[in-house]
């Protein structure tokens, strides 16, 4: 599993892996928002938590189909399916690699983009914290969606239609944490809910994703 994780990591980082593409998308989205809604600092700082979270979510979505598609096409997924490692472990390792290559950079760059959007001072720590807790859930839910659509030729659009509704709870609690942090309210409840969703998703969805993969590889 560790080998597989490192392999996916290497594939993701090297050229053609799409690494950085998500980041660039995130950056562009954040740059575009002020053009769309106007540059007033107060207004921007009010919507900044939501924009950053929605941006992270979309950037994450962008690279989801890469989790299984390439391996499915060149046949290595079939080999992984018959390997001694259980398929649940394979999906978990791949989702984790996806998180490290897209989620983690997003977490690290978010404060920088927060400056652009005039994010209020106390919100920064909560922004990083909530993204760090929430983005693994995005990757694991996405891995499930990718496993469902892996056999399809044009699965990209369908993938987003399937995955985005599943992202709703994560987004609500994540953005709520930052919003409350920005206004100086207690953040314990949404943060705990976010962590709960993340843990449950990381624990359970690899099984669903593996089931979907087995069906697709039949």
């Amino acid at each position, binding site marked *: 599993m560790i080998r597989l994780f490192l392999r996916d990591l290497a594939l993701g980082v090297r050229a053609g892996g799409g690494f950085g593409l998500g980041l660039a998308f995130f950056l562009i989205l954040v740059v575009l928002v002020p053009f769309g809604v106007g540059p007033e600092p107060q207004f921007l700082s009010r919507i900044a938590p939501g924009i950053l979270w929605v941006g992270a979510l979309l950037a994450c979505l962008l690279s989801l189909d890469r989790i299984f598609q390439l391996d499915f096409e060149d046949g290595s997924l079939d080999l992984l399916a018959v390997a001694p490692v259980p398929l649940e472990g394979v999906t978990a390792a791949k989702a984790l690699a996806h998180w490290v290559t897209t989620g983690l950079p997003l977490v690290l760059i978010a404060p920088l983009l927060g400056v652009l959007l005039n994010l209020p001072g106390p919100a920064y720590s909560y922004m990083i914290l909530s993204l760090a807790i929430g983005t693994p859930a995005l990757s694991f839910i996405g891995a499930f969606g990718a496993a469902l659509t892996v056999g*399809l030729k044009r699965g990209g659009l369908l993938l987003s239609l399937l995955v985005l509704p599943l992202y709703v709870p994560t987004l609500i609690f994540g953005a709520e944490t930052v919003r409350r942090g920005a206004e100086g309210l207690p953040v314990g409840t949404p943060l705990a809910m976010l962590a709960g969703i993340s843990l449950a998703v990381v624990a359970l969805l690899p099984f669903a994703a593996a089931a979907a993969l087995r069906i697709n590889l039949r």
Partner: protein
Amino acid sequence: MSIWEYANPKRFMQVSGALLPWLVGLTLLTLIVGLVWGFFFTGDDYRQGSTVKIIYLHVPAALMAINAWMMMLAASLIWLVRRHHVSALAARAAAPIGLTMTLIALATGAIWGQPMWGTWWAWDPRLTSFLILFLFYLGYIALWEAIETPDTAADLTSVLCIVGSVFAVLSRYAVNFWNQGLHQGASLSLDKEENVSDVFFFPLLVCIAGFVLLFVTLVFLRTRTEIRQRRLDALEARERLA
């Protein structure tokens, strides 16, 4: 004699074919009685005027929108456990009906909300979770359409239905947390205090019965169509081989 006998497509076709005229008649009867009673023989509410009557469409449609998903969940589980094709096809048949019910509930709600709340749409928890349910239906149907191998499609949509159910419930509670609502509480709980008054209650019950029957009828009809479609595909495949 067990209930699984009806999982045999042939048995299902026989029984559903025999039941269908009765179901259609009963559906029409209850719907006409309920709606006519509701629309013409109950008074206007003293504050809402005659807009209150939209309840006879709104509440049953919303109820069936949720119950249709529940039925799909049950059918998906039966398919995954016992591999009865009729079950998978019934789940497939129910999805567009559920989608339509969701749409009816949203549309009637908007039409009622415009004069009453002064807005077509509010980001109220109930409204929002219905919109999310709508998206779930869309995704489910799109996945069915996208996959060519029937059994693979049935398996994958079943998995999606199960995971989606968990997330739908989760979303319901998440949006509750996210925004306070405009929508009134339960209108049909067993706790009498909360209910709508009896004048509206009894025609509403008839309408709900009508919508349940309508749903069952439509699912039967559509499942029969799906089975016939399957048979047709099988025939065509056989001819191509011959």
